């Protein structure tokens, strides 16, 4: 029996992509538009991620922030936090980076069809969430009632403000926002994201909750959703771990027996009940 691989291409060879746009969103975050040099669409599903290479510096995973319904380019929103991200932040439109992917399972679109959706985004969680929200809005008739809850630590950290305003103005979305610590310009709701839950009505039998945010947020939001009567198989969470390969080999992203890059990053609460290292539900 031959052991040789059936494919000839290396798993680790990136495609080149050009930065078409670089927009500063906050002190730490920039939104980049990219298009593959080979002219192809990225072909991703909302909730998937790509491995971005700055050759000579390294490679790191980033959720795709744009919907696949937006053609011609795709968007990554990147926080300046380490070697690769600070190198990316220095890049101008025209610069070329490496892209591998899309990887991961993405959000369960077939489960969402026809349902009410409760989007709960905390902090940077809005980045992958935006891909799904815009996908749903581009196919609005296929979905029921839409509720978006977005919370950040401070007003300065809110991302995609122009888009948030457009979502808020729409009559077919209930958009609520909060911050933990207001500044002098903030006249809206103050409190952690769970404090937004009393402001919305949801039909638990029709609703799927999509939750993306920092690890500390998941347990509390999961509890809120359960208390509202949403079943655990319809509470969907996107997790994040260290990734060096994106293809289920390097081992860094393991949560118990699962690879976040292959079996995730999107998991149901039911699945997370069997994954204590997910940090969402204690056994």
């Amino acid at each position, binding site marked *: 029996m031959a052991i040789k691989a059936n494919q000839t291409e290396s798993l680790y060879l990136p495609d080149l992509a050009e930065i078409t746009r670089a927009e500063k969103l906050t002190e730490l975050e920039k939104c980049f538009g990219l298009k593959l040099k080979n002219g192809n669409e990225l072909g991703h599903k909302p909730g998937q991620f790509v491995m971005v290479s700055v050759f000579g510096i390294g490679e790191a995973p980033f959720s795709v922030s744009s919907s696949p319904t937006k053609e011609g380019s795709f968007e990554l929103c990147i926080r300046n936090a380490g070697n690769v991200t600070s190198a990316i932040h220095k890049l101008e439109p025209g610069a070329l980076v490496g892209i591998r992917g899309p990887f991961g399972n993405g959000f369960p679109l077939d489960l969402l069809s026809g349902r009410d959706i409760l989007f709960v985004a905390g902090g940077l969680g809005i980045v992958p969430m935006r891909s799904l929200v815009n996908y749903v809005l581009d196919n609005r008739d296929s979905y029921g009632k839409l509720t978006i809850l977005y919370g950040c630590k401070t007003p300065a950290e809110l991302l995609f403000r122009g888009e948030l305003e457009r979502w808020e103005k729409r009559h077919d979305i209930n958009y609520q926002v909060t911050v933990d610590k207001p500044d002098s310009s903030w006249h809206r709701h103050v409190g952690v994201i769970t404090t937004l839950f009393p402001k919305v009505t949801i039909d638990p039998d029709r609703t799927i909750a999509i939750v993306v945010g920092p690890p500390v947020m998941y347990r509390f939001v999961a509890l809120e959703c359960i208390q509202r009567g949403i079943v655990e198989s319809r509470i969907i969470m996107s997790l994040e771990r260290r990734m060096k390969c994106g293809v289920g080999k390097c081992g860094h992203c393991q949560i*118990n027996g699962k690879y976040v890059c292959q079996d995730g990053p999107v998991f149901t609460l039911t699945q997370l009940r069997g994954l204590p290292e997910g940090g969402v539900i204690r056994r």
Partner: protein
Amino acid sequence: MSLMILEKALFNSFIERLISQSEVVGPKRKENTCAFEVINDPDELFLDYTTTILPPKKYLFPPEETLLKFNLGEVPEVEPVVEIKERILLGIHPCDLWGIWEMDKVFADRNEDTNYLDKREAVTIIGLECLNPDEYCFCTSVETAVPEECQYDLFLTDLGDEYAVIVSSDKGRRLVVGDDAFQPARSSTLAEIKAKQDEKSAKITSTIQMDVSELPLFFDNVYDSPVWESEGKRCYSCGSCVMVCPTCFCFDAVDQMELNLASGQRIRRWDGCMLQDFAIVASGENFRHTAEARLRHRMYRKYQYLMAKYGKSFCVGCGRCGRACLVDINPVSVVNQLIEAGQ
């Protein structure tokens, strides 16, 4: 598959012929231990060895290898690199053959890793029955004493004055065809091979107190056992166990630039879930921040997660981790403590 005999007196010239055709790697004595190294002369071989410091994985999944080469510029030129070397791995014990079987599976699963698989294809494997297990060996507990499903090309069993030679692939056949030293086996040869296997198994003293097939389900019940703390708090997170394990394959990937800052490469190098920073993310959060959690995770990999997926214990019972551990954490001891604590 065919069975042949090679007289001991003719063994060295067989090895010399192999050395003239290809790079040959075999077990070599190293002070009071043994290591796989390139052999230039059959006299360098130490075939009665118990085990080696590092398993043969270092030839299929080396401590460091290049994945990409790139030239920077307006348009970066990026090329994949797959380093292949034709070589013969000689003298691989059954436990290590199972280690290779398992590495073959994980690198081919779902996404095919050409860096491993192409290297693997270029290698010829000559297995060797183990005659001298020691008190760290426990292949019988994890059913790796007999390499029945393993992919080897030849398998040698020392029967005293001769070697029994199992020829189990075209590659293996090509090594022996036309060489008169290889004679057809006798009717008793198969039984003699089995007798040597049984002799080896009888020498094993370290055993897990549970049938290996029950381990995955058993591990479902011990996630919160106090044994993880009592063993884990002794661990230095040095990663020695990971380095010497035939089935550990976690890796890091880093970019390295030449001094001219115009070209460079991306390499992968060994990493390990037992190391402190393995599960750290950019925000500083460490998703496995205690040695206990890391030890537990590695044991679950070997005896549950990967075992359930591939139907075989991913610990091959070679005992290298127990020998290498600076504080004598031993997998048989850990599992037996878990069993006892549960009673």
